[in-house]
């Protein structure tokens, strides 16, 4: 509850004039007139403040809508904020919306309307995000103003909403390209394993054998039969534990869109696919310190991963050995980056270390799509540098736009082998 500027000025004026009419200039009709107006203003403000204080946020219905599902850097989108008066009385409202660091292109961020009961007002504006990252929309503020514009009550309708701006992909990944480029992968797995329990896929009912857990007993079936105990058996599908080691260095900020953005986009897309298949995915950013690892168990965890990826700040360099000192148990690991700060021996050591833990390491070096002569020359130099890594097993150079399909293919191979 607070005074508007107009209310503040009126109260200050009343105070000053009351003082003047009492002490300096005393002419009874004028003095009484000033007193009457001052008392009126004070009382009116008090009564109105009391009425407005009874208005709750439940007096309003509110919705916010974007015209796009995914916001990309530089792409314009429309935001519609609709406010409905759910109370029984008409309310004079000013609806304000906030947008943090987004660029406003068209339309106002504020609208004033006298809303009758059940009437709605819509605030519509267009904006765009200049780069990838997490932006904030809101919180929307509803200022309920009295008829004279002297007192107002500000109601915050919700918390700020996060707007994730994902990096732009060069083009849609084509599966055929990804498959052609993938080399032979040497992995092996045990296939389906028989477990007893109440989860996963039902296999059969069989007679109880000594040593089997009692919780596996199918009591309903047992009761129907001739006194023999029967147990239920289930197949539990293996869940792959996958690790992504993603370089987040300034050396990956080349290209348009940047190479790093393409990597993040591919990791995000493939992680979603992996998690939907039942795998557990851990993503660790190499370089940024503190809170640089996220493990995704289900699709609900993807938001946390998206936040990690799009808020990461690339560093100039990192130490691969130090960053991979503590690595848990994984079935497969993907190292993705240009490997500018990595030596040939370090990569071999990491591969060996992971192999001993039963994990297979795939190293993907994303390559920029050359568009002009200068870029082609730089690509040639980059190829010469990368060549020494390609001699190591499971290291591949992958085109920027094929990264997602390549990873998807590797995942399918791993699933088939597991």
């Amino acid at each position, binding site marked *: *509850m*607070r*005074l508007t500027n*107009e*209310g*503040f*000025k*009126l*109260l*200050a*004026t*009343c*105070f000053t*004039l*009351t*003082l*003047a*009419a*009492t*002490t300096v*200039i005393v*002419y*009874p*009709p*004028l003095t*009484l*007139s*000033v*007193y*009457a*107006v*001052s*008392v*009126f*203003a*004070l*009382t*009116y*403000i*008090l*009564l*109105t*403040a009391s*009425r407005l204080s009874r208005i709750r946020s439940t007096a309003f219905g509110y919705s916010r809508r974007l015209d796009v599902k995914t916001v990309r850097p530089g792409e314009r989108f429309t935001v519609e904020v609709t406010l409905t008066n759910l109370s029984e009385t008409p309310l004079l409202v000013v609806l304000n919306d906030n947008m943090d660091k987004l660029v406003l292109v068209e339309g106002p961020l504020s609208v004033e309307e006298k809303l009758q009961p059940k009437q709605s007002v819509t605030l519509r504006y267009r904006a765009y995000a200049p780069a990838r990252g997490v932006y904030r929309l809101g919180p929307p503020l509803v200022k309920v103003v*009295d*008829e*004279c514009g*002297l*007192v107002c009550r500000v109601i915050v309708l919700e918390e700020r909403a996060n707007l994730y701006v994902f990096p732009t992909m060069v083009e849609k990944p084509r599966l055929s390209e990804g498959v052609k480029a993938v080399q032979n992968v040497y992995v092996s797995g045990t296939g389906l394993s028989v477990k007893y329990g109440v989860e996963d896929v039902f296999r059969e009912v069989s007679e109880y054998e000594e040593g089997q857990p009692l919780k596996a007993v199918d009591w309903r079936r047992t009761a129907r039969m001739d006194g023999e105990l029967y147990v239920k058996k289930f197949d539990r599908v293996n869940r792959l534990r996958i690790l992504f080691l993603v370089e987040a260095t300034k050396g990956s900020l080349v290209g348009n869109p940047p190479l790093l953005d393409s990597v993040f986009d591919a990791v995000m897309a493939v992680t979603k696919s992996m998690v939907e298949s039942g795998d557990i995915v851990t993503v660790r950013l190499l370089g940024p310190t503190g809170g640089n690892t996220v493990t995704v168990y289900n699709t609900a965890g993807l938001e946390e991963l998206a936040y990690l990826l799009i808020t990461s700040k690339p560093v100039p360099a990192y130490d691969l050995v130090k960053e991979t000192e503590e690595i848990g148990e994984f079935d497969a690991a993907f190292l993705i980056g240009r490997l500018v700060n990595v030596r040939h021996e370090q990569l071999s050591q990491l591969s060996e270390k992971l192999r001993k833990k039963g994990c297979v390491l795939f190293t993907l070096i994303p390559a920029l799509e050359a568009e002009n002569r200068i870029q082609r020359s730089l690509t040639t130099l980059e190829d010469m540098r990368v060549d020494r890594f390609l001699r190591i097993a499971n290291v591949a150079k992958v085109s920027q736009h094929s990264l997602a399909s390549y990873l998807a293919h590797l995942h399918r191979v791993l699933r088939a082998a597991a």
Partner: protein
Amino acid sequence: MIVGKIVRFTAVLPPLIISLLTWLNTDFSNYYMLLGAVSLILITSTDRLKWAGVGLIYLPAAYTVYLLFSGNPAPFLGLATGYVLASPIVFALASYNSKNLSGLFTGYFTAYVFATLLYSVAEGGNTKPETIFTTLVRNLIGVFSRDVINVIPPQNPPIFLMSSITAVATIALMLYTAAKPDGLPHISSEWMGAFLAAIALMGIGLLTVTFYSWLTPVMILGIVSLLTLAAAIMLRWLYA
């Protein structure tokens, strides 16, 4: 629209009436006085007339200053008196044109005070333009030199007449808070509550002062203290 105009005009009526009374007491022998008053009022009019007002101000001002240094001060004093006598009307017009409540209220008070001051000067026997201006200047200097301390001479506008008009103007001031740009004022329950509270409090205060005249200084001090305290608490509470 027309309702709003009527309400605003009613609110600034008291200073206009007091100014009229002042003008009726004034000697019109010096026509420069009329010239000064008209040019000052034109300044507050529409943009087109404003340019005419600027011409009407600068040309006579320059000419009368020339006459003053030539040994003829009467035109200069007449022109200055015209400006001064027109000032309550100008304040009232500014108040009438004001878009907000505080502007209207401040303009109303200022115009009222100036009108009362000029009425007192004119009613005190200073009817000639020259004497009106010199009396005002002497009083103004007196404030700082403590030579003459009565800023407002004891002659006041007729209280019986002005009380009724001021009461109407006060109601108009209150009504203006509820005025709408299009249509009749919106009288809410809060407005009516505040209006009745103000009227009741003023009525009680007035009766008390009338019947117990010895309470007047205490009452005034009490009312001012309460109003000040209420305003301070509300400012602290509502504008924090």
